[in-house]
Each structure stands twice: as C-alpha cells, then as structure tokens.
C-alpha cells in the first residue's frame, strides 16, 4: 500500500506523515511539488506546514503546483486524499473542499492537545473510528478558522459532510466548531489538527494513563490502509 506524501517548499510535517504511514504498516512515497507524476500511489497525504511561506493566502500557491493538478484530477476520480492543516488549506484553495480558512480569532498561533468528535466514519480516512468517538489530536496553527457562507454551512450540516468537530473548546473561532470536512464522495478529507503527531507512544498527547501516550491519530492511517486493501 503506497501512500504519497507531498512536499512543497515550506512543508514541515511531511517526514512525520511519512512516519505515520510506516507505523500504520504502509509504504510512504515522497512526492515533490514540481513533479506531476503521482508514482502509482494508492492515496495521498497533503501534510502541514507553511507551503510557499503562506504567501498570498495559505495554500494558494501550492494549489497551483504541478502535483496538485494531478491530485485534483485523481481525487475527482476517487483517489483518497487527506489534507492536514496546511494540506486542508490547499484542498480548500483547490476547491476540492468548500469554504475558507482564515486567521485564528484569538490572533495568535495556538498549540494544544485538542478533543475532537468524529462525526463521519464513511470515508477511507475515518472508517477505523466509531461514530461519535472522542479523540485527542494535537492542534497547532495560526490560520485555522473555518468559515463558509450560510448556504454552504447549511449544506455541509444537512448532508453530513462535517467529519470532525471541536469538543469542549474551539481554539480558533471556526464556524459551527468545524474541525474537518469530507467531500460528497467521501474520498477527500481535510482537517486542521495533526493526526500524524499522535501515532507513536512517547511522542503524542498526554493521556490519563501516561505522559505522551496518546495515539488516536493512528486511526486515520490504518483506515486508509484498510480501504486500500479492500478497494
């Protein structure tokens, strides 16, 4: 199972995403932004960071990269794509997901262990979770505020396209506490928190059992490997 992980200039969490794929049991394939060839991967991860310095708008320049042209095409054909943080921003700029992501309402960068509720398990990235499951995933961003007009929000809620919602605390002012979305087809998922930072015991969020033992993020990567196997 080959999972592509894209690197743009300024991408930061690509190596972490690759590690997450490996820990879950898959093969991580590095994809370069300027190379339109997807190298026969079974799924793609757009990791976090500050691609192209967040210039113009977060993810705006990355969305124009040669690799994104291929990914948009493949996604429209059903290829599973996961956008994490900056990756979510790239998906929104590419119009693979609706809405926009703007500066946190608190005006500062926020790094915290964030409780989320999984609201949709019918995607290749979330099938390992139970509907309504609470997970703790590290969140770290400055432009994570999800916005969309009233009509779009209504549609998202009505069609069950909200994949994750912030619980107990909304860290960035996202409307309707939306932390992540899926597209209609379900193959494209984007979220602001970073599952790749909760995959290895000793390096994830604290839990009541032990310091840094949280591995709720592993579910994302195991899910896609399940769906690739079963595809």
């Amino acid at each position, binding site marked *: 199972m080959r999972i592509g992980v894209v690197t743009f*200039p*300024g991408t*930061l*969490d690509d*190596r*972490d995403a690759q*590690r997450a794929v490996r820990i879950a049991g898959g093969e991580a394939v590095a994809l370069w932004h300027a190379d339109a060839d997807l190298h026969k991967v079974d799924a793609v991860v757009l990791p976090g*960071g*500050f691609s*192209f*310095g*967040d*210039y113009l708008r977060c993810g705006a320049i990355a969305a124009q990269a040669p690799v994104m042209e291929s990914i948009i095409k493949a996604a429209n054909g059903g290829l599973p794509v996961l956008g994490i943080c900056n990756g979510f921003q790239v998906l929104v700029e590419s119009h693979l997901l609706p809405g926009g992501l703007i500066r946190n309402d608190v005006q*500062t*960068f*926020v*790094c*915290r262990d964030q409780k989320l509720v999984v609201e949709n398990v019918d995607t290749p990235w979330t099938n390992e979770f139970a509907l309504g499951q609470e997970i703790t995933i*590290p969140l*770290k961003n*400055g432009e994570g505020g999800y916005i969309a007009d009233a009509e779009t929000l209504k549609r998202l809620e009505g069609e069950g396209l909200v994949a994750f919602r912030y619980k107990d605390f909304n860290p960035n002012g996202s409307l309707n506490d939306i932390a992540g979305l899926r597209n209609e087809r379900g193959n494209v998922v984007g979220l602001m928190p*970073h599952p*790749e*930072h909760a*995959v*290895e015991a*000793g*390096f994830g969020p*604290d839990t*009541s059992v*032990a*310091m*840094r033992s949280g591995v709720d993020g592993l579910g994302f990567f195991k899910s896609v490997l399940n769906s690739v196997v079963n595809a």
Partner: protein
Amino acid sequence: MAIFKKGSAAPSNADTTANAAATPDKQQPWKELGLKEDEYARIREILGRRPTSAELAMYSVMWSEHCSYKSSKIYLRQFGEKVTPEMQKHLMVGMGENAGVVDIGEGWAVTFKVESHNHPSYIEPFQGAATGVGGIVRDILTMGARPIAVMDQLRFGDVSNPDTARVVHGVVSGISFYGNCLGLPNIGGETVFDKVYQGNPLVNALSVGALRHEDLKLAKASNPGDQVILFGARTGADGIGGVSVLASETFDADGPSRRPAVQVGDPFAEKVLIECCLELYAADVVAGIQDLGGAGLSCATSELASNGQAGMRVQLRNVLLRDESLTPEEILMSESQERMMAIVPKRDVAAFKKIVDKWEVEYSVLGEVIREPRLYINWGEEEIVNVPPRTVAHDGPVYERPVAYPAWIDALNADSSSRLARATDAAALAEQIIEVVSSPNQASKDWITNQYDHYVGGNTALAMPDDGGMVRVSEETGLGIAIATDANGRYGQLDPYAGAQLALAEAYRNVAVTGATPMAVTNCLNFGSPENPEVMWQFKQATAGLADGCLALGIPVTGGNVSFYNQTGDVAIHPTPVVGVLGVIDDVARRIPSGWQDEGHNLYLLGTTRDELDGSVWAGVIHDHLGGKPPVVDLAFEMQLAQALNAASEQGLLASAHDLSEGGLAQALVEGVLRFGVGARVWLDEIKQVGNVDDTAALFSESTGRVLVSVGREDDVKFVGLCEARGIPVLRIGVTDGSADTAHLEIQGLASWTIDSLRSSHKATLPALFG
C-alpha cells in the same frame, strides 16, 4: 561628509586601494563607525596606508565588541584552559567555531549554542526576536547538522510598565512566527520579569542540531581554486551598521539614540535554505560553509579565509542585490538574513547548482579561494579591499579593561533577608504560597508557550513545563538529548561568581532529573557596559565561577556568546549569565516527567534544606527585597545527586522527579500536583527537624542540590537504599493522593487547596497581564 552615499554606485565613486595609498591624509569617519583612535592607527599600521572606505567598514564592524569579543576574550580563555583531557573526550568541535559539537555515541553528534539578540529586540521586538531565532538556527545548520529544536530565554521589564507589554507581545510573536515556520519544536526556556531589564530586554535563543560524525562541516576555505558561492536571500539594506552601532553602544535614558535599519527575517526562505543545505551536504559538494550573521559579508569572507589559513579573491559586483542603490561599503556591512556562503570545489559546482535550482534558491559565484593569505575584494575593475584576513577576523583588539570591586556590594551583602518579617500562622503562610506561585515569574508560562509548536518532527519526548527539553535523535535505538537553560540575575547581583555557578548547577540538575547524563555546556553572558569597571568585575567573577564550575562538574563549555552594553544610562542590568547544559540519554523511553501521575506513590525530598532565603523569590515577592548572599552551591554533591538519579532511573525506580529552585518546595509541590492534576498530602515536620528550619524556610528556601521525586510503593526500599548508599540525604515527605474531582494539595498543619483553585491562581496571571 556622508559615510554612506546613496545613489548609483558609479565606479569612479569607489574608494580604491590605489586611491587610499595616494591620499593618506584624507579624513575618515572612524569615530562615527565606532572605532577608537588607537584601533584606527593599528589598521593603518597593518595595511601600511590608510584603509579604503570598504576596509574601514569591515574593520569597524569586525572589531566591534559584538563581533570581536575584545573586552571578554581574556576571560573567555578560561573555558578553554580550565579543562582536563577527560572533559574533552567527547568534544568534536570546541569554542571558536559557529557552534560546539559533542559526540553522543552510535555515530551521532550534536551541536548546540545559545546567542543573544537583545538590543534589536528593544528597538523592534518582533523582528529582533525572529531574526535572533533565525541567526542561531543558521549557526547550527552551518555545522552540517539538521536543526532539531529551539529554546528561548527571555527577560522583560516590570509587568506594570506599559512598555513591557509592547516588548512581550512582539518578542513572543516573533519567536512563534519564525520558529514555527522553520518547523522546529520549541522545547523549553524561561521568562523573567524584573525592572532592571526595562530598557534592556534580554532575548537569548538556543538551537540544537543532530548530525552523523562524517557530516561535520567547518567554516573554512583551504583549497586554492575552490569557488566562493553566496546563496540564499538577496542582499539589501538590512541592519546596516547594526552590529557595531547597535550592540556596542548603550541607549540614552530618553530612548534609543539611533534607529538604523533593523534586520527583517523571512522564515520561509530559511526553511528552504535548511532543506537545500542538507541536500548539499548529503551530496558532499560543499568543502566549507559559513552563515552570514552579524557583519554579513565582511565576516563570512574574512572568517572563511582566516580559518582555512588561505585567502580569497571576491568580485563584489556579483552579489545579487535587492536594492541596486547600495554602495560597496553597505553591501559588505549588510545583515540581510537567510544567506550562506559555501566553498565549493570546482568539480562539484554543477552538482551544487542543480540542488539549489531544485529548491529555487538564488546564488552567485563571488570568487575563489587562493593560496596567499590575503583577502582581495573588487568592485568591478577596482580593488576596494586588500587585507590580511586574519587581522580582520581573528587578530582584533584585545582589551584588558579596568576592573573595580563594586562600592555598593558589601552593603548589599550585609542586608540579609533574615531581618525580614516571617509569617508564623498557617493562614498567612498559605496566602504567601499562593502569592509566590501566582507571581509573574513563578506563574504558568502557558500563555507564551502555547504559541509555539512542540510537536513538529515527532521526536519531542519532553518539553515545557518539564524541567528540561528532550528530543530523540535515533529512531532505531531511542538515543536522545536533553537540554536545560537557567540564569538568576538576582543571585548574580549578590555574587556573580556564585550566581554563575548556581545557574550551572541548576541547569545541570534540570538535565539530571530528566534521566539524561549532563555532558556539555553553552552560555550567553548578558552584562552591562564593559566600560564600567564594576561591570567588568562582575564579568570577571562570573566567567571564573562558570569555568571553575565546569571543571568541577567535568563538563566543558563548547561555545557561547557575550552580550555587553545592556544598560540604560548608568544603570546596568543584573549580571545574567544564561547557562545551557546538554545531556545524553541512551533511550528516551526512560525519560522522567516532572510531576506525578499515580496515586499512592511516596514523595521524597532529596538533599538538605537550609535557611537560605537571600535573593529568593519569597524575599522578592513578599518583601520586594534583594540582599544578602545567594544559596551555597556544592558542585561535588550535585554530581553525586545526578549520578544517583541516573542510577535510579536506569533501574526504573523514579515515577517523577522535579528539581527545586526559585520558589523552593512550595513552588515544586504546586507544579507537581498541577502537572497531571494528581493531588498530594505532604508534611513539613521532618524537613524542619532535620534542617533545623522554620516553616518559611521549609517552604521557600532555595537551597541547592534538592529534588522532589515520586516513587511507587514497590520500589521504596530499593530507592531509599540506593540514596543512602550514595550519601544522598532522603526524606519521605508525603504521598500522592486523589485525582480528578477530589484532588487536593494538602500541606499538613498548614492548608489544603483544590487542584482547580491552584490551577486558576497559577495559570491566570500572564493571560490577565498580556492576553
């Protein structure tokens, strides 16, 4: 006469070497550029003629205090002299290079250093702090390492002064902006508020990097024919005059006397530069590399040549400019960020170009290395610099500044805290505990540290609020490093020799409590003006204290930084030597948290509590008092203690370990229960009995060599036995008790607080002040 002429740099305006030889009596603005008369005379002597404008600019910047360490050199020598062969065993690169490098085993090496960016952070806090981070990270990158973490040590003015918020907001967002964008986890540091830093905030930045032994790079150009290539950002007017003008002169009491261009940083450019450089290193196409920081091109060219005992021929017109109106002198002095200079063998240039092109990094070939130890710089066809590089980079002036025992210090030392009123009733003591743990310096720094990414890289094993930061270096074996930094300006003011040793002891202990073994030291020495003999005395004492301390602990200083001129008018800051200690751990899985997560564990206090409240947080917060002599430091005991902790950790006996320092036991207990929200029941009787101290001392004394640990019931006997066998005083002082809804901290006979109320007191302070 204008020093810097704007407008087109037509060849006929350049002050050439020929012109300099022909016009020996031309008046030159050496004074405005910060040089002393004897220094100017010496330059003329070295060159056998007057310097050209460009040469004058180079010497003025490279011979400034910040670049040449002229006032501190004679004292810094001690760090290289007071060493034993045993101490140097693991040292791969010592002082004098961009950063020290330590062998940590398994073919891995680690490079680390702390540096200051104080004055720019008062002028423009955001960019000052941001470029401070950028600069230290480039130093690490230059050694051939991948930077893996950052930390920062901040000192601001009084919280009630409105200007403090300006500096705090700018500095914290600057560090957040730059560090996060580079993808480096921020794993610790410290923040202190004190009115002595009002006009002179301290922004020290530390970075650490990891490399395989064979990847080590040095900043030298040795092979004639190798190409000199400048790459990264374009050169603009950033920070022109910044180094010599800014850091070597103090501010007037009314405000900064000059506002030259501050450096503006672009962390995206630096992130790209990091990845690009690491690919260049992996391809082995770089023979030597230097980053451009203070003094820009002047520094990079002269240092590379001097270090390689060779020379260089440079064509300055080849420098890619952001601003075409810059004169040659300005180009040489520019401190534009995110630039590196590589020495590339001719045969590797094509491969070099391929890699920089891939990352869309701009570059230009400026010239080549030559055998003759001479630096020739041309502006077009005209020679504007012709100097021996060693005289610029290494043979700068060395001062032996006058030193004077401070007139005020005996009275200060006589004014002990023992005359201060002490509370005796439980209610008053309990109130003082809350006052201490919620005071700005002791309160939670979450408001700041939640603006930093701790996760990126996926290798952070420990970060704030634990005592040291810890990062995994090898994914295969779990090999990792721990770092802690400490300084206490109040102790430094009372006794700079002891103050430096206390900082070293605390950082050493903070590494030991994580389970790692301390191995090496870096330092950032923040002091007032070296032209003040009393400040020089403080500096002399502090460096001796630190050097003697390192010798006693058997760990070498691998590099560091000096920041002088931290004063406004006649008032200097407290001597604030920031000491960073690096430790190694064979497997980060063994790391020890600073607070307890289990109920029913025993709490032990290791070490001896004496009545030592001089310079303490209690004295400052409750009585606004600074006087007496700081706590006694016993380095031999610190070593024993560290070894005992290591042994206990290896045997898996420690569930948590937290060192005691500012705020004493009271602070450590509150931090311990708040770490995971698990309560505790403790008693002070034995502490008071054994140490012959009262409640105030038991709670707030800052005696050194003490650690609070929690141990599982099944490990009690073994643990106590281990301590006793090693001569470590150990007292059982409590049990961990209760979690979630019922959790309390109870100090028997004194008070009991819910965890929630402690949490609000501890965490509310900074958001209320700055949120």
